[in-house]
């Protein structure tokens, strides 16, 4: 007896409510965009400059007392947040203190850090500082730029690759699904104000890769079935292909999620935001490869009349063999 996530054979009609799915995705994209534009992201120091200090005290963190101690120094915008090393902890002794970039200095002046540390020691005498990170405004500006370039380049390169291997309709469908995933991820980060730093960009790009992976697998089957069933309407071909690959899609998403959830719960707080982005991306990416990419493909239509009968088209990799 085998464990199965979906029944042996499925005949789900994924396009019965395609208008609903597209509408839902569209609405969420608009919400994400509005949230990003009005609320904005909670940028980490990588992107806005400034200093973060991670402190560990003996007593639980008293955000108010910490704030008061540092406010006296007149360092401008200071944010103090509790850090939960395990997501289930009730209270914590670890805090993350962020100080805005100071006027006239690229990275932090050592005196400023010493002042903050001394101020905190008055509130929590045995406090220790596990890490101090400081990024100057010059670098943070460049980091934003390279991040945007990286995401755009990745999407562009993928667009070209799929265009070469498939038809342009497939490429467009895949890229719209990608934009959908990236936008929804940025949306959730802006909506619940999780810190958005360099690592999240890495997560975004992985989501791009993962979501694409899913989409390409479905498309690959669509291409195969289009040749096999020349007379079948496109909607049926798409449905058949999604159903045929559904078992694989859910299996892979499930194993990936298993690994990610282990990392989320046990991997410590430093990468929790990063892992959260990935989990979200895997869920959204799986959804979008079925409900967004394929629906777009259905909507755009595909060239069915293969004037050149070419049995090997698109399978030049079939030559690679053990």
């Amino acid at each position, binding site marked *: 007896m*085998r*464990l199965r*996530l979906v029944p042996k054979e499925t005949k789900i009609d994924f396009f019965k409510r395609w208008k609903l799915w597209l509408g839902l995705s569209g609405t969420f994209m608009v919400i994400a965009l509005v949230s990003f534009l009005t609320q904005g992201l909670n940028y980490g120091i990588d992107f806005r400059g400034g200093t973060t200090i*991670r402190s560990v005290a003996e007593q639980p963190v008293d955000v108010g007392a910490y704030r008061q101690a540092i406010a006296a120094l007149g360092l401008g915008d200071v944010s103090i947040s509790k850090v939960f*090393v395990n997501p289930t902890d009730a209270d914590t002794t670890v805090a993350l203190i962020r100080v805005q970039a100071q006027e006239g200095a*690229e*990275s*932090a002046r050592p005196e400023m*850090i010493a002042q903050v540390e001394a101020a905190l020691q008055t509130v929590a005498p045995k406090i220790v500082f*596990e*890490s*101090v*990170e*400081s*990024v*100057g405004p*010059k670098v943070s500006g460049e980091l934003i730029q*390279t991040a945007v*370039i*990286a995401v755009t380049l990745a999407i562009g*390169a993928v667009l070209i*690759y*799929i265009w070469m*291997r498939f038809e342009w309709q497939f490429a467009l469908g895949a890229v719209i699904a990608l934009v959908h995933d990236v936008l929804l991820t940025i949306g959730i980060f802006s909506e619940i104000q999780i810190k958005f730093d*360099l*690592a999240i*960009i*890495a997560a975004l*790009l*992985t989501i*791009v*890769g*993962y979501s*694409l*992976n899913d989409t*390409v*697998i479905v498309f*690959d089957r669509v291409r195969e079935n289009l040749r096999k069933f020349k007379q079948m309407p496109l909607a049926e071909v798409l449905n058949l292909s999604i159903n045929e690959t559904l*078992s694989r899609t859910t*299996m*892979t998403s*499930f*194993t*990936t*999620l*298993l*690994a*990610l959830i*282990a*990392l989320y719960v*046990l*991997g*410590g707080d*430093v*990468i929790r935001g*990063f892992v959260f982005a*990935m989990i979200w991306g895997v869920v959204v990416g799986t959804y979008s490869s079925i409900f967004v990419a394929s629906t777009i493909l259905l909507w755009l239509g595909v060239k069915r009349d293969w004037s050149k009968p070419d049995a090997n088209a*698109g399978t030049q*990799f079939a030559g690679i063999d*053990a």
Partner: protein
Amino acid sequence: MIQIETWKRVLIWSIVAVGLLLALPNAFYTRVETHNDAVKALEKGSTADGLAEQEALWPGWLPSGLVNLGLDLRGGAHLLAEVKVEDVYKTRIKGMWPEIRDMLREERDTVGTIRLQKGADDELRIRISNADQTERAASLVRGLARPVASLTAAGASDIDVTTDGQDVIVRLSEAEKVATDDRTVRQALEIVRSRIDEVGTREPTIQRQGAKRILIQVPGIGSAAELKRIIGTTAQLTFQPVVSRTTDENASVSAGEELLPAKEDKATDGKPIYYLLDAVPVVTGEDLVDAQPSFDQNGFPAVNFRFDGAGGRRFGDYTAENIGKPFAIVLDGKVISAPTIQSHIAGGSGIITGNFTLEESTELAVLLRAGALPAGLDFLEERTIGPELGADSIEAGKVASLVAGAAVLIFMVLAYGLFGLFADIALLINIGLIFGALSLIGATLTLPGIAGIVLTIGMAVDANVLVFERIREELKSAKGPARAIDLGYEKALSAIADANITTLITAVILYAVGSGPVRGFAITLGLGIITSVFTAVYVTRLIVVLWFERRRPKTLEV
């Protein structure tokens, strides 16, 4: 019928064996690390006790490459510094003044008297008394231009000479600036490297980044501030004749002189002391061959130094001619001390005293030995990660990877039975291969890198899942087991290739554009994709074929 040629089998197992062998040292991390350190120390000729035993901890014939742990895992300091290349323009252009002055003086009959005006830092502004001869003076100055010493700007000259009314203005040309910048950054990089080597920490990373930046990562160092003190000091040392001593910071300074503050000395009324110095130094730090921390005759920390031959002679001649006069020892624009010359100092060595603490004298000796930075450094980014946080992160990463791995392994067996077990073996080999590859290229493992590996654990089974699902489908159409396995691999290949190439594209872009931890993630993700495709397409297949050859099953359940 499914079959794999013998040479392919040998090749596949060899790759797996080599990969696992390369990964092996990581399983005994501290042991191998101690061994490697001992080997390095022995190579340097050290004969310290216990080195031989430490060396024997790991057999020399086994590979000893380790995955470097990133700063976020090991703790340490990270600095991104920008070299203030403009500093050098000033020195360069001011250094041209004597030559220009001498040349124009010879032409006094036509251009009249000349006077240096106060101008911007990176220019010489020379006023010509015969206003109608400005153009002539400018063309004379142009005659002093030299070609730029660089391949890319061959033919360009090193200075731009323009006129502004009665003034001739000399600036460095753009081509010369570019060439100078490059030299300055390369020099700075070397100096930073030798300073950090002097301090002697393990495996520092010192890299040039872009045109003007230097990235410095030193594991194990307590804080970025400490690192900054070592590399941030320019350490330009000069010995200059003293003209006079004053407490007036606005004392008038004539041409060829400069007014510099004393480091700490205060006059009796508590006002800071300034020295008026001859701007041309007798000897500089560049003439030093050695510097060591020591103590003066009163037992206070001091620094002993020795000049090279030419520097020693100049210093000797100067002290012989100026007995009874003070001279100043200047470090980075501050007078450390201004002793009076008691006697002719021959032999080219001497001592610097100046109210140092023991740490200061040790640090100064290091800085003087390593040499002065050609220009100041601006620190754009600095990160200190405590070793405890690093250890916590490794621990958390380990636990998470183990749990993630176990969950995926169990799940695969539940879902695919025997074939799941095959996939599990491949997955374990895959993780071994990732570590082998990381050790081979000397890559650095960061926290996001661990996340990359965990993600690979999840995704690595994808290729296997694709194949197994395909075999299931082929079995439905009532083909024999052998045919189904064959077709399963054949038909799944195009999907595997497309899916992984697209992910590989994003990993490559991440690596190219990203920096630091993001890069670490890109490396493990990229390597993970390559090894997982290899294990799924070749290793699992080989295992399946081996099993099939032994059992010859009539039916197949996947």
